[in-house]
Each structure stands twice: as C-alpha cells, then as structure tokens.
C-alpha cells in the first residue's frame, strides 16, 4: 500500500534536516505504529506524506499503490486514498461542518469520476457515521472544529475518515488530548474501518492507544529514521523502559 524509500526532508526555511532516510513499507490491510521521542520527525513524516508546504524533499520516494505521492498536490493525494488525521485539527470559522464534509466527499467523488452524492443521500450517510462516533447534530451544524473540545475535534477527524473511506490512513497523535472514554470511542471508530483493503499508520507517543488499536508492526523513529521495528511487544518495551535503552542499543543520539 504505502512504500517510503530513503526519504530525506529538510525544512524549507532554515535548511534543517528533519528526515534522514526513512524506509517504511505498510502492506494493504496492515496497521503499523510509529513511536519515538519528541523531535524524531514523526509529525513531519505525516505532513510530508499529505503534501503540506514548508518542507523540501531532498531525496527518496513515497508511493501509494505505486503512485508517486510526492509529485501530487494535497487534494490529489486525498483523491488517490491518503488521509491524514491531524494532530491539531484546524478551526474554520464560518464554514459549517456539514458543508465541509459534503464538499470534501463530493470533491473526491468527482476526482474519481463518480457522481456527486445527492443532498438526501449525503444526509443519511453522515448521520449514520456520526452516530457511530457519538457526534451529535449540533457538532455537524457548528463551524468546522470551532468551539469543539479536544475529544470532539479528534472524533470529527475520524468522522471525516469514515466518510472519505481512504485506503491509507495516517493518524498523527490522534490520542493526544483524549480522556479514556474519548480514546475508546476514537479507537472503536478506527477499528470499525479496519479492512483488508485499508492500511493505517498510527503515530503516537504512548502505548496506551495501541491497546485499543492493535498494530501488526511497531516502528521506533529517532533522529529522522526508523531505527527499530518489531511486533506489538516493542511498544510495551518502550512503555516500560522509555526510549533510552533502544536508542543506546541502536547507537542513535536522541
């Protein structure tokens, strides 16, 4: 599904190297997790995959089902099936959440050569998905993320994911700012979307989220590279011992 090869990325403005050769392969239907200390480049990887401005890719490639992501505009990446659940979902005053969702769904359908969804069908669709995530009618009416609590914003991200039905979901610290109940709700939402044709890349600081969203593979990222990969037990090891031991073992400076 997602193939990242030797990806090197610098900040556009200050020539600071953030990613220094990331190699990562997420097969179809798999859930991979990336953990790592602050500043290791996890969020940068998420942003670069989604096409945010401000980064220079100096070397390497990122492909989604064989298509070169780095050559595409952000909306084209979304249309081929990439979705980023933001660590900090953006507030858009004046744009109703429902309008936002309908615009997004129909834009992607159009890009894929499908007909736009009728207003009635859309309403039915969004209500069903919203109910699963305990998102009430008020949250759908309000401007996008404006006045939403941390938990509501993250649930709104998962709602978008559920509606856009992407192939490759990147979750950037979706657990940050969530209480236990909200984490369960969000995780259930993600788990409901797991299927053989859909892959996940779950970026997190904490093992806790991975109790709910069970990963097939856990990667440790440090200093702009994947330094160690393993099964779910690797996350437990981090939780118990911190990153220091692993980094020392791999001879990486944190």
């Amino acid at each position, binding site marked *: 599904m997602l193939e990242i090869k030797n990806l090197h990325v610098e900040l556009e403005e200050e020539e600071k190297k953030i990613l220094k050769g990331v190699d990562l392969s997420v097969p179809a239907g798999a859930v991979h997790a990336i953990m790592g200390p602050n500043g290791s480049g996890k969020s940068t990887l998420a942003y670069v995959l*989604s*096409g*945010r*401005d401000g980064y220079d890719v100096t070397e390497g490639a990122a492909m989604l089902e064989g298509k070169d992501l780095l050559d595409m*505009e*952000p*909306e084209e*990446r*979304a*249309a081929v099936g990439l*979705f*980023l659940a*933001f660590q900090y*979902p*953006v*507030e*858009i*005053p*004046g*744009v109703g959440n429902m*309008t*936002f969702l309908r*615009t*997004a769904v129909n*834009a*992607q359908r159009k*890009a894929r050569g499908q007909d736009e969804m009728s207003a009635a069908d859309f309403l039915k669709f969004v209500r069903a998905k919203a109910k699963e995530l305990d998102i009430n009618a008020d949250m759908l009416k309000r*401007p996008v993320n404006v006045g939403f609590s941390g938990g509501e914003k993250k649930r709104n991200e998962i709602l*978008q994911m559920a509606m*856009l039905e992407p192939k490759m979901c990147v979750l950037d610290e979706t657990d940050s700012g969530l209480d236990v109940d909200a984490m369960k709700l969000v995780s259930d939402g993600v788990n409901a979307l797991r299927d053989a044709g859909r892959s996940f890349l779950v970026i997190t600081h904490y093992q806790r989220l991975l109790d709910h969203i069970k990963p097939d593979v856990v990667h440790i990222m440090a200093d702009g590279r994947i330094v160690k990969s393993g099964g779910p037990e690797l996350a437990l090891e981090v939780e118990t011992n911190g990153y220091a031991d692993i980094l020392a073992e791999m001879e990486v400076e944190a």
Partner: protein
Amino acid sequence: MTTALKSAPKNPPAQISADTLPASGAWATDARADAAGRLADMGLPTRRDEYWKWTKPDSLISAQPDPAEAFDYGSEAPIFDPIDRVKIVFVDGVFDADASDPLDGEGLEIERLADAAARDIHWAKDLYGVLEARGQTPVVRPLAAYNTAMATDGVVIRVTGQVNRPVSIIYRHEDDTSDAVLHHVIRVEEGAKLTLLENGAAAARFSDVTEVDVADGGEFHHIRAQGRCHDRQAITHMFARLAAASVFKSFTMTVNGKLTRNECVLELLGDEGVAHVAGAALGDGADDEFHHDDTVFVTHDAVACESRQVFKKVLKNGAKGVFQGKILVKADAQKTDGYQKSQSLLLDEDASFQAKPELEIYADDVICSHGSTSGAIDEDALFYLRSRGVPPHIATDLLVLAFLADAIEEIEDDVIADEVTARLDGWLARHRG
C-alpha cells in the same frame, strides 16, 4: 420663484444654477433651492477633504460621466428574480411605468417623486432634503446636497402597515453615457414594516439618495445588490432617522464597479432603536478598475440603542477598498451598544484596503468597540481543506464565503440571504485564479 445661489461659493459646481433646477411644486422647489445654497457654501468634494483622501471624487463630479458599457444579462436572471415583490423599474434613471407593477395597495403608498413634487402639499415635504440636510453635520456631504437640488426622478414610499411583499427597485442601465440623479423618500409609520430591495446599475454614472424616516416601533429592511456593470461610477447616500424601538437594517452587496461610494448616515433619536448597516464587497481589478468605499456615520442620541456596522471586502488584482466608519455617542445616549467591524481579505499583494474607524463618545455608560483588520486566506485552513480532497479554488471560495458570513447574516430573510450568497458564489467562480 427664483432661486439664487448664496454668494461666493468656494468651488461652484458648473452644472448647477437657478435656471437648471428641475421644475417642481412649491415645497420641492424650496427644498431644491435650499440644497443648492448649501452646496454652494460647501463646494464640491476635493481630495483635500478629510473624507475624500482615499477616494477620488473626480469622476463623480466631472461634467460628463466616463462611458460605462451596459451589462448584457443574456439568459442570466437578475438577482431577486425568484422573489415575489412589488417592482419599480428605472431605466437609465427614468421611471418605467410599463415595466413596473401598479404602485398601490398592501399598506403602501408609492408615488413617483416628480408627481409628489408637483403637488403643493405632500408628506414628503417634511423629509425631502430634510434628513439629507441633517446629515451634513458634522461632516459635509456635498454630493448629497447636489442630489437633493438636481434629482430628476425617484419614488416616495409611505408604509402604513405590514407589507407582505418587498418593494423592489430595479435599475436598468442601457445607455453607455447615461447620468442619473435619483432621490427616494421613505416613511415607515408607527409599527409598520417594509423590506426594500434594490438592484442593478441606475446609469453609467449615478447618484442615489434615499431618506428613510422610521417612526416608533417601525421596521425598515434594505437589501441592495450592486453588481454586473463593470465601469459604472456610483455615489449613494442613505440618510435614516430612527424613532423609539424602531429597527433599521441595511445590507449592500457590491461586486464590480469602477467606483462605488456608499455613504450611510444614521441617527438614533428614540430610545431602544436598532440600526445595523452591513456590506459585502468583492473586487477584482484584473480587467476593470475596482474601487469601493463605505463611509458610515452613526449617531446615538437616545438611550439604550444598538448599532452595528459590519463591512467585509474581498479584494484582488489591484482592487481597492476604503472604509470610513464613525460612531458618535452623544452625552445623553446612555446604555448605548455600538459595534463596528471592517475587515478585508486581500487575495494578493496588489489589492489594498484603507480603514478609518472612529469612535467619539460623550456618554459614560456605553459599550462601544471597533475592529478593523486586513488579512490573507488562512493557509492552515486551506491546507486542511485540500488534505480532504477539496481543490484549492473551491477551498478558497469556501473560505471567502466564510469570511463574508457575518455580513450576510445581517440579512434577516433567509431566502434573500441565500439569493445573495448564490450571487457571491457565482462571482467567485467567475473570478478564480
């Protein structure tokens, strides 16, 4: 009766003299002569005048208007077309009876200005040029005085009850060099309610003055669309006097137009009155000049009144926006709640916006504030939308409409608000990139 201009005008307008004032009945002749005298005293505006430094008055006061090509609607329905309304049509500044609806009924008295002015006695006598004259202090508005002196057509409307349908003044511009001076007078009687719609360009160049008097508990709603005519030059004035517990709400959408200056002068004279004036202007200077100026003066002269000014401008390719807005709170106007917002969204570095927000407050128990901002599209919001698959032009349009939302929200009627939003959306679609 003879009309003599007062002596030594500092900057006499060439077009105006006793001989050229339009023929009228006695009261109107007096009102015109009075206005001509005031104009002679104040002179025409120049760039040296405080409130004209950002807008060149030249093309508004030149002997001949710059030609403006009439817009061909083709198969496009003009705005407000789907709305059931009483239509009053002016073509190049002249009332067109055939194209208009019958001017009576439904708690309404509508007359053509010329007919009202021809009579010896008319209720409009107490308003025509009267509210305009009141609005000359403390800031002079010479082009409004000129209009009172020279207006050749217009309507006078008296509302005595609940009017079921909006009154809709439709301006059609057909002659590329037409020059219109129109003056309307509106009296909303106690507890009565009127919605007035205006759309279209009245002429290649036009001056439009509307005097509105709202009695106790009366309501006046005004939605105006200035669009679809690229080279027109326009100066409009709205003078309103508001009695106790009355409501005045005016919204103007402006798209296109080489020069548009909308002045609005509101006086809250009765307790607990509400006065809102709002505008959404979209300007693209790529193919045609665009200069838009909102100049507003709100006077609180009664207790517990509320005023709002909400002006939004979206500008690109050298389009220019100006906002000059003032709230004056007199010493007796306690419990005043006044707010003024003027914001521009500059879609590129060539566009410019100049704002002069002013508060002058003599009462001590008031809530008054103003906020004026200039900004660009929020890049984070744009990226967020694009990451969800929304192409940048659609995302930008969505963010522009979001920016305009609180001005559009000033329109109370949802059907009219939707109609305005659809027009704004259409303009955005035509002016992408």
